[in-house]
């Protein structure tokens, strides 16, 4: 659905641009292609890594690892899983909801959801190529610590 809208928007912009200025449009398409070709190796690397990690750490394994035990140890584990995996939200939220029903702690799940979204270990190569090592390290480290704060606040509000 989102993809269809995206295509509709970009194609209509392309046609509009073509009608206004052929030369500029050609430059735009060439630039788009050049950037895409530059990034292709990083994209392929990241996506194949996601395919590997996601399959090995499937929801069953994740849920077995977390179990019902709580405490800081559980949070360390869920935050580490959240940081390295790249599960889309529409998979992660129902998974978290079902784990919650089976007795997992709210803070463990909150830190999982938060690190999942904010910390990207597998997207690091891409981020480094855009922002350099220092930014990538700072942003991911801060986001990781911040996820614990978020989890504690959610734990206080929800329970």
């Amino acid at each position, binding site marked *: 659905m989102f993809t269809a809208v995206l295509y509709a928007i970009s194609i209509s912009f392309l046609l509009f641009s073509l009608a206004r200025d052929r030369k500029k449009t050609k430059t735009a398409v060439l630039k788009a292609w050049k950037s895409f070709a530059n990034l292709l190796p990083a994209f392929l*690397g990241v996506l194949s890594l996601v395919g*590997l990690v996601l399959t090995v750490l499937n929801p069953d394994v994740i849920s077995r690892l977390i179990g019902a035990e709580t405490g800081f140890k559980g949070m360390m584990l869920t935050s580490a899983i959240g940081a390295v995996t790249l599960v889309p939200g529409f998979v992660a*939220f129902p998974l978290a909801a079902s784990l919650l029903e089976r007795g997992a702690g709210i803070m463990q799940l909150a830190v999982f959801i938060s690190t999942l979204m904010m910390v990207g270990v597998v997207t690091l190569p891409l981020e480094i190529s855009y922002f350099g090592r220092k930014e990538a390290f700072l942003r991911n480290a801060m986001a990781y610590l911040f996820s614990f*704060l978020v989890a504690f606040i959610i734990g206080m509000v*929800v329970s």
Partner: protein
Amino acid sequence: MKNLKAYGLFLAVIAVDLAILVYDRGLGARIIANTSRNFLQMAGVIPPIFLLLGLLDVWVPRETVVGLLGEKSGIKGVLLSVFLGAAAAGPLYGAFPVAGVMIKKGARLSNILIFLGAWSTLKIPMFLFEMSSLGYKFAVTRWAVDVFGIIIMAHLIERLLTREEKEEIYRRHAADF
């Protein structure tokens, strides 16, 4: 040769995949199925994003972006960055090329970081979905804490980077996005 090095990660992962396939056929087959699905998803989402960015790069003048998101954009720039990120959809790796064009056009670094943060955690469609699966208390609390956290962290990162490091980031995107 430079090209081969760029594909290093990809080739290494594929080698691991093949090794797993030899030892555990079922698991290996699932990995390959998931990986191909990821590739197909990328093949679907990425081309229109890049096409849009190419058009954006050619048509939107630098002054416009500097005015809206640049050094002097202030609170307006912050709010616009949150909005742009939250209104987006799609995986985070789609956000990096967008950030690249924004850097090229002279957006302030902290605003770009806010945009990235909003894209990763504040997306509206995801928020609605989160509310229905984990409850409104969970979702609203996370959203509210995240907005402040993202803005604070973005400014913190901007301060922690030296001027040279920031210039290097902008130089990186001077030609391409």
